[in-house]
């Protein structure tokens, strides 16, 4: 068998495996099944993805949560949504999203810490997120209380279509600008009465970015 034939066979085998996997197919398993080095798996999949892209397929091969999977092309969403009914059921409430953001950026984190940031008890929301499989217990606080510490799961990455947590935008990007600081500060100052209106200063010079501690 020529080298070309072997390459073609590997490509075909990869396509077959990707077709039947129910979860993103991790490179380790693919490497083992195809009997090639892991690095070659990455190259093979990257090439396949590019090929589907170049030939305008209605599906894509993408790396999500550490593995490769077939998914429909976002352009085709209107057609697929008509067909797949579950589209909207996966929506999260604002409270859930905010809590999820806190967990995503501050993991590992305890419920008490989350509650301290949100200002309200987070137990109900955390339960929803756990049931949905977006967060999970990932450790125990070594301190006296041994509080359960939470983190995000691979399902969370899948939900966001991300391969890795690194792909989340930096938290520093969201730290409010000086204008917001000032408005907030003024709002909390008893003697600051209406005499002075907040000038809507223009776009945020990023304030201090030390809130991602």
């Amino acid at each position, binding site marked *: 068998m020529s080298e070309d034939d072997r390459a073609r066979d590997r490509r075909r085998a990869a396509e077959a495996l990707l*077709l*039947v996997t129910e*979860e993103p197919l991790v490179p380790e398993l693919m490497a083992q099944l195809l009997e090639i080095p892991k690095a070659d798996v990455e190259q093979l999949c990257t090439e396949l993805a590019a090929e589907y892209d170049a030939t305008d397929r209605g*599906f894509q091969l*993408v790396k*999500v949560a550490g593995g490769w*999977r*077939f*998914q*429909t*092309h*976002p352009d085709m*969403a209107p057609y*697929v949504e008509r067909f*797949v009914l579950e*589209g909207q059921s996966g929506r*999260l409430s*604002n*409270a859930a*999203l*905010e809590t*999820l*953001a*806190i967990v*995503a*950026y501050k993991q590992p984190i305890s419920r008490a810490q989350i509650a*301290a*940031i*949100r*200002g*309200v*008890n987070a*137990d*109900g*929301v955390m*339960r929803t997120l756990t049931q949905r499989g977006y967060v999970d217990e990932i450790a125990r606080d070594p301190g006296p209380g041994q509080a359960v510490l939470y983190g995000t799961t691979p399902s969370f990455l*899948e*939900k*966001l*279509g991300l391969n890795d947590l690194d792909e*989340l935008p930096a*938290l520093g*990007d*969201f*730290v*409010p600008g000086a204008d*917001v*600081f000032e*408005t*907030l500060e003024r*709002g*909390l*100052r*008893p003697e600051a*009465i*209406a005499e002075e*209106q*907040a000038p809507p200063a223009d776009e945020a010079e990023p*304030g201090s970015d030390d*809130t991602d501690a």
Partner: protein
Amino acid sequence: MSVAVETPVFQGPFDLLLHLILQDQVDLYEVRLSDIVDAYLGQLERLESMDLEIATEFLLIAATLIELKSKRLLPDDGDVDLDEELALWEERDLLLSRLVECKTFKDAAVAMAGIANEAGRSYARTVGVEERFLGLLPDLLERTTPDDLRSAFLRAVAPKPVPHVDIAHIHQIRITVTDAVAELMHELPGRGRASFAELTADLVDRIEVIVHFLAVLEMYKQGWIDIEMPEIVGGLEVVWLGDAEVADEDLAFVDAYDG
């Protein structure tokens, strides 16, 4: 100053504070309790299903604001304790940093929702293997015992720690502080005096009681009633002061009270 009570999202104390402070550019100390209550009630009507968490959040907001505002109402006796003053500033700094942190994550959440929405336009294939391979699948129950099954069932139906309290009926509450004042103005002249417990005896919802309590405070402030507490740990007695002819129009400003 008019505060828009239209709060597109009502998510908790910081949310509300942020909203009022940032969007309406309102001094926290001028936030009117009646607006909070009205916004809350309005929100309840809009929500399709209520969450106990939101209800507790409201109580927390109300308590916080009442505390802040009551501090402000207390007579200023001139000689301010420096320690207290410092503590107050510290408290403010703390609140400020929490507001900032809260806003940071709120914005991060919005960005995350955008990412999730974009990702939601693609649908993963999860069809699995074809029938002809099913025979090869290992038996997934091999290591499962009947007791595992029992535990799994108990886990699945365990009462969810968020108590499922049926508060659907709150949707029907349409009472505002003004309504409650109007009701009490109708009720009290005939009675002369009544305990707060009596006045609220037929109310079903705690929130209605809260609204009535706010109404009593308002009426007290307006000088229409007196409030007595015969026993230290007893209930409140509400005494009508008899200046009976307060026309309905006068009530229009009640909602705007800044107490």
